[in-house]
């Protein structure tokens, strides 16, 4: 029994907008190195959950702990891949990476950053301005930013979005790699059959309410039962 705090803990986590509860009453504990697949129909609260975990959104009630601390204090150990790319469109791919590396106090060398760009399939695109990049390329760069930071806790909101089939394979490889390196992973996606084999646990949200939890492999059948 480890006495390390769980990587992520949510207690009665709720976020409301007026009468509507975007996320209602979630209790969650995820140990370090584990992975969680969050599924549910549109508007079920998946993005809300990830934003609450990353503390880019404040809970209406309840609390979040990352590595035993409030998320605002643990931001170095958190990485979020969200719908918004967080990129500066006037800068190039490489420059965006450099900004992130510099502000994070990490190595800025062209080799390191160049290798990251290669890793995400943007080799040779370092000098292209984001403005001239397609949505898929921007998504890949967002991944590069995440890998550059290499945090302990990785939150992915619809990682397959905007990518082509090659990109899908890339995401699958990435998830496998992160898991094997002992990173804690929370991922939301619509592509449940594809992602379920890659992750350990699954959580189904419906209208903001946690409806089912169990092994990720059972998630597809749980969904067809509850969402028919």
């Amino acid at each position, binding site marked *: 029994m480890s006495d390390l705090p769980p990587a992520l803990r949510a207690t009665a986590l709720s976020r409301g907008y007026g009468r509507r509860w975007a996320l209602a009453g979630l209790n969650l504990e995820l140990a370090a190195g584990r992975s969680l697949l969050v599924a549910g129909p549109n508007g079920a609260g998946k993005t809300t959950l990830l934003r609450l975990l990353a503390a880019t959104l404040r809970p209406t009630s309840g609390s979040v702990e990352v590595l035993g601390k409030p998320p605002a204090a643990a931001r170095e150990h958190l990485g979020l891949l969200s719908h918004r790319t967080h990129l*500066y469109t006037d800068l190039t791919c490489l420059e965006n990476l450099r900004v992130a590396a510099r502000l994070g106090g990490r190595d800025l060398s062209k080799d390191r950053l160049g290798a990251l760009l290669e890793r995400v399939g943007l080799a040779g695109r370092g000098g292209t301005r984001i403005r001239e990049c397609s949505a898929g390329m921007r998504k890949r760069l967002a991944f590069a930013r995440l890998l550059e930071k290499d945090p302990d806790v990785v939150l992915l909101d619809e990682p397959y979005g905007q990518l082509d089939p090659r990109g899908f394979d890339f995401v699958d490889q990435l998830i496998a790699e992160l898991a094997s390196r002992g990173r804690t992973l929370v991922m939301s996606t619509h592509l449940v059959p594809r992602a379920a084999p890659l992750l350990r646990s699954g959580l189904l949200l419906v209208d903001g309410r946690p409806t089912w939890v169990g092994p990720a492999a059972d998630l597809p059948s749980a969904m067809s039962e509850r969402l028919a």
Partner: protein
Amino acid sequence: MIRPALGVLRKDLKLDLASPGRLAAVVLFSVVTLLLFSFAVGPDTSSLQRNTAGYLWLALTLSSTLALGESFRLEVEDDALEGLLLLPVPPAAIFYGKATANLLFLLALAALLVPLSFGLYGASVRGSFLELAVIIALGTAGLAGPGTLYSAMTARARGSDVMLPLLLFPLVIPVLIASVKATSLVLLGDPMGDRGAWFALVGCFDLVYWTLCGLLFGKVVDA
């Protein structure tokens, strides 16, 4: 704290240089404003000369809202600001980095407008150039500091073009008064040695507001 602030400053300067077209428009606007003043006031050369400081600072103030607004629009475009906060960069560092970048832009703008206004209005410097530089620096700092904070709030607003000036202009009235007075005295001569008090007033304003805004910025960008 200083390192991230410098990092943000660097990033902002890089952004400014990456697309000069954005800010070229602001520069042109300020030049046109100066011209408008001389047309509006008419060719009374002695009055134009006497009021050079006023026109200069008006042009700077009006242009500042455009520049300040632009600098935050970039952060809001793809939620880049959220990205910065997640890195994590302390909010105060973001403030000081951006405010300094804005200040540097306004200084560059002033460097263009000063000789231009001398040419248009026939003014010249009776006092010392160093003092002129100092008051320009102090005055533009008074615009850049609170302006950066306000632009963070108005960047996403629908009426942002009018909200930022509406908030900023009343606030910087003391800066305007003192900067114009001090600049006037440096340009036209200061027989009674009054200018020290005006320098001090802007200096105080800058000190108070750069500290206050740095402290409050975190609350403005809070989730």
